[in-house]
């Protein structure tokens, strides 16, 4: 199915008053997920085995790690070519926090996709919600997602979205360089990288590398961001029915594995002797 058949998912028009007049500017949409701070110590990590989710407790909510890298990639591309970055998230009211952070980092517009019916959906349902929101946005050149969420880590949203929108999909890229109607993407691979080219619009998932370390927003930017109102789009407003349906991906059981490892400490009178004893022990265990 072509883009037109899918309902006119197309590219952004050149704004006349753009400071980049004469060149094509880009509209990049970044799909974010807000999660409980993944950097907390394992000892503070608790789950609710009945609800099958992490207990938030007093921990902060943050933008999921790879989504933050995706936002950085989008902002870097916009800074080069001109244009705008829109950040989307599906969440309850608390999702505006992630979107304020996105504004402070460099997103120009944000939308909170929020509806009581959204919480029960699996990745298939979430994909339809995001696609409906993209249709409402109308015009864009690129959709970026982090390579996987920092909590359930399924990593299916980007590829699912590409299928739903009928757009090319490029996985695990670290940079994008849009140029007129095409984009160059740099993808790190084992011992090197690939430069790929694709037509606009496209969907890509972003992985991290040294070139897309998320910037820290300035205090001024944070202050300015929190003053901005976050628009909320409900199911009705984007024309999607996200009722409870038979989930195709079902979480049956969540548990913290018991690690019953007791470390065997290698003795010795000196560091050197311990090194030698370690080698002997490794040999004994046929590990080397």
């Amino acid at each position, binding site marked *: 199915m072509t883009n037109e058949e899918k309902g006119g998912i197309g590219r952004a028009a050149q704004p006349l008053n753009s400071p980049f007049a004469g060149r094509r500017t880009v509209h990049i949409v970044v799909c974010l997920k807000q999660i409980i701070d*993944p*950097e907390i110590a*394992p000892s503070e*990590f608790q789950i609710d085995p009945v609800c099958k989710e992490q207990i938030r407790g007093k921990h902060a909510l943050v933008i999921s*790690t*790879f989504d933050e890298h995706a936002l950085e990639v989008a902002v870097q591309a916009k800074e080069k070519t001109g244009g705008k970055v829109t950040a989307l998230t599906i969440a309850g009211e608390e999702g505006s926090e992630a979107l304020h952070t996105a504004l402070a980092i460099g997103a120009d517009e944000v939308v909170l996709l929020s509806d009581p019916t959204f919480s029960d959906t699996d990745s*298939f349902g979430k994909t339809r919600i995001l696609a409906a929101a993209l249709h409402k946005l109308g015009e864009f050149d690129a959709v970026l997602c982090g*390579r996987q969420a920092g*909590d*359930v*880590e*399924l*990593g*299916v949203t980007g*590829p*699912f979205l590409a*299928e*739903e929108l009928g757009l090319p999909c*490029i*996985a*695990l890229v670290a940079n994008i360089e849009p140029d007129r109607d095409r984009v*160059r993407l740099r993808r790190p691979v*084992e*011992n*090197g*990288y*690939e*430069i*790929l*080219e*694709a037509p606009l619009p496209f969907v890509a*998932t972003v992985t991290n*590398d*040294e070139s897309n370390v998320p910037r820290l927003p300035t205090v001024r930017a944070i202050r300015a961001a929190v003053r901005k109102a976050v628009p909320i789009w409900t199911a009705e407003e984007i024309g999607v029915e996200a009722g409870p349906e038979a989930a*195709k991906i*079902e*979480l*049956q*059981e*969540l*548990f*913290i*594995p018991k*690690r019953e*490892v007791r*470390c065997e*400490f*290698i003795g010795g009178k*000196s*560091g*050197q*002797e311990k*090194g*030698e004893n*370690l*080698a*002997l022990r*490794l040999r004994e265990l046929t*590990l*080397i």
Partner: protein
Amino acid sequence: MTGILVFSLASAEGLPRSSLELVAAAEQLREKLGDRIVQVALLGQGAESCAETLIHHGADEVLVASSPELQSYKTELILEVLEAVIERVSPAVVLFPADTVGGEIAPRLAYRLGAGIVTDCVGFELDAESRRIRWLRPVYGGKAMAYMVANGPVQIATFRQRAFEPLPEDTSRQGKVQALQVELEPAMAPVSLVEEVREEVEGISLDEAEIVISGGRGMGGPEAFSELETMAEILQGAVGSSRPPADSGWVPHAKLIGQTGKILSPNLYIAVGISGAPQHMAGIAAAKTIVAINKDEDAPIFKVAHLGVVDDWRQVVPALIRACRELVGN
């Protein structure tokens, strides 16, 4: 008889090890589910030369689509071939490697087929009552594990590298090899490869290494990593790092092991001067044996290590290298 289908993409370097691991996983599934055949969809240029290897490692039937167009970045074409294979053999389960190609193709195929998908699996079990497969996978950066179920006309799962060991080769094993007639329209692939840069690396890649030796902040600088390289050479392993050395530029970012880097499951993992932050541990949760060398006896790494040495690595590692050289004879 519905089968278990394994996806394999061969390249100029031949068959990835993950294909043999997936055939081993499929064999275990067969044992649990009973009365199934293990089929492989083998794609890539010159793929037919790899078909026998798959049979010798446990596959019953190999469907080969050989075309120079079937490259890792031409995912539209790969998907087209896979859809045709699935229509033909109607598998109950399709297994993919959780790598760059599998990580994209598997969810896209699932979406097309309306099939449930579980990614990054490390194991599975069969629910005795419902006879459904419960796929086991790490979540929350390895801090928790989840059993997930895929619903739909076919189940799709991707497996982490080294979650299964390839079955021993049996050259007497017989199987069926079928060539698929594929007519691919190159123009159908919207993504093209402009440039490919690969550094020549000596030795074994991190992804494939059975022994991995990693350095952390305690290494103090880039020079110290050459000692780890020496040890890797002797043990035929590879060198990795935790986040501080990668962030400080002591080692290339490609060496980073952890939640935001490589996720490995080597037989032996030796952590030198690594404290054991959760983000790093997520990358080695599946390592079979973990050895920690750290002068701080309270370092969290000792809570997960099987063997530990509390001392300055500068004393320990040179002696360890000498002793390994003698024992291994390299």
